[in-house]
């Protein structure tokens, strides 16, 4: 452990533990949450770790309050996070919208379980992927990441904080029970080797500060409460001063920017992993645990002489539209295994635009695809 309380070294960690340590290493110093399987271990570990690093932990009365609390903490000048699962994620939606509208940096971890409703609390799922994109009302850009191992839960939690501070919005870590509850080796590098980004501060004096006037990258510099700027923040449609403005012109200017700050920076945000896509005739497009088990199917397919490849979505939102469009011109089919009955497959199909077939391989919540099932679909696709 370093002097400031960050862990360094090799650990045999669950995904939930790795996620917690990723947050600590990224500088998270506030956690507000509510117990819910399968994310609870994150709150438990945070309650021990945050006091060790000078941070604050609070168990709120519900997930609505948890989400509100991390927004308040972020404006208080502290990097903040919550973690939840399906039912809690649904309750957080309104305040995720407030975070988007008020451009509040924070991280929301969703350890997905099988739904709808209470569903299968202890068992895995990927059914909240579209909710992550569109779950709060209105139009906005969003960032969501999907890790496939405890190590990547550490890495992507750090990345989620960096993206949230860079682009000023809630960033979603859309993990799954399967990864959160899996133990594996996790390597935590020394603090100097972990890139940590902090929000851009205003460079003008308070009387000249316009809290919602963006820089060239469409992101406004952010003052924290208590720094003497005396700014106003509202979930109402607002102008660059932060003042409510009931006009369609202001609405267009603001909301278009909230969408564009994600899409126009998409090249900098999006991260995918490609494995043998260059010569592929069929590409499996997957994320999280589904991408992990898909590798076995791809290996077997290659052994059989089928040119299969993998496009793993590390960033699920914004969706890597351009890359899928490119690959569509080269392949016969995309195969999309996911633990739901078709969500990301719809995006793949949209971007493929008829140039290649999209074949969904659905799996019920509660379990993970057998690689054989994915292999069978790969074989049918090239027949």
């Amino acid at each position, binding site marked *: 452990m370093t002097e400031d309380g960050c862990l360094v070294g090799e650990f045999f960690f669950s995904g939930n533990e790795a996620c917690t340590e990723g947050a600590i290493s990224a500088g998270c110093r506030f956690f507000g949450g509510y117990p819910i399987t399968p994310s609870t271990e994150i709150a438990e570990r945070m309650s021990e770790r945050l006091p060790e690093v000078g941070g*604050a932990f609070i168990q709120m009365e519900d997930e609505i309050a948890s989400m509100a609390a991390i927004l308040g903490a972020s404006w208080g000048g502290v990097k903040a996070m919550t973690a939840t699962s399906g039912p809690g994620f649904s309750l957080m939606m309104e305040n995720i919208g407030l975070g988007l509208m008020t451009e509040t940096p924070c991280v929301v971890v969703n350890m997905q379980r099988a739904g709808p409703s209470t569903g299968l609390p202890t068992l895995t799922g990927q059914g909240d992927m579209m909710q992550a994109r569109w779950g709060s009302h209105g139009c906005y850009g969003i960032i969501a990441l999907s890790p496939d191992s405890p190590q990547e839960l550490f890495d992507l939690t750090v990345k989620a904080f960096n993206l949230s501070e860079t682009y000023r919005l809630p960033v979603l870590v859309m993990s799954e029970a399967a990864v959160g509850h899996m133990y594996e080796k996790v390597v935590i590098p020394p603090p100097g080797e972990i890139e940590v980004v902090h929000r851009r501060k205003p460079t003008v004096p308070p009387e000249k500060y316009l809290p919602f006037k963006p820089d060239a990258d469409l992101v406004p510099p952010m003052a924290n409460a*208590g720094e003497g700027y005396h700014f106003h923040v509202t*979930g109402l449609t607002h102008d660059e001063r932060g003042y409510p403005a009931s006009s369609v012109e202001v609405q267009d200017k603001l909301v278009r920017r909230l969408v564009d700050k994600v899409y126009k920076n998409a090249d900098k945000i999006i991260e995918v992993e490609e494995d043998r896509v260059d010569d592929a005739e069929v590409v499996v497009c997957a994320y999280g645990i589904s991408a992990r088990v898909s590798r076995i199917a791809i290996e077997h397919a290659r052994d059989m002489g089928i040119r299969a490849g993998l496009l793993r979505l590390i960033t699920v939102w914004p969706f890597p539209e351009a890359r899928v469009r490119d690959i569509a011109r080269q392949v016969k089919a995309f195969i999309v295994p996911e633990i739901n009955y078709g969500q990301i497959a719809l995006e793949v199909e949209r971007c493929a635009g008829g140039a290649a077939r999209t074949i969904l391989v659905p799996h019920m919540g509660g379990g993970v695809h057998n690689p054989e099932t994915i292999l069978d679909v790969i074989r049918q696709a090239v027949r």
Partner: protein
Amino acid sequence: MKAMTGPKEHPLDIYLRAERLPHIWCPGCGIGIILNSFFRGLMESKLDLDKVVMVSGIGCTGRAAGYVNLDSFHTTHGRAIPFATGMKLANPELKVVVFSGDGDLFAIGGNHFIHAARRNIDMTVICVNNFNYGMTGGQLGSTTPLGARTTTSRTGSIEQPMNIPYLAAASGAVYVARWTAAHVGKLERTITEALLKKGFSLVEVISPCPTYYGRMNKQAAGLEQMRYYRDNSVIKHGIDPKHAAIEYQGEIIVGKFVDIERPYLPYPQDREWQINLR
């Protein structure tokens, strides 16, 4: 040197975002009077204005945050208190004031109120209670007196209303007071006390809503409601707030009901304290 002709500066100007005026509140509404008392109470408290934050929810009173020249946050309906809780715990040197309405704080946000009071979070909550939902057109609220007419209880409410000071005291608030918009001087002094109180303080202020509640209940002018408050308020400091329930057109018990000490959050120097515990 200042010009001698223009309008004289008002001592409360520094607290207002003058460029945002005129405000949205109706003629005869009590929120402006209460906000004025808040400013005077804040001035008297001598708190550093750079460190005072106002958080509000949604509704007529929720708009107050938009007019105050402080760091101010207009959040979602009912969620001002948990937002403020996160901010206070993240940065204990801030003085966090929640300024919102009865519907926001006690109907949709009721559970958050209970838990913030139970935890004794160091914040001040000022609740403007006008007995109905003004912003959406005068509907029944959790504070609407039994028998009072609203746009969703046309023949009179059949529900028992909430007794706010009683709930606050039972939940663990260390400072609980109630005044009406007709008690500006007393309200100012109470607000100063509440702001300087360590722990969770609640100030309920009964306010006219002539446009809806008043019109539906034979007090169509704000002045009539103010007169009713003046004639029917009874000051009973220290009374058990269970006896402070409000009945339709009945007397209104006002005063300071609770002023006690107990450990609060964030605990002073809590970081060192927590580390020392280990």
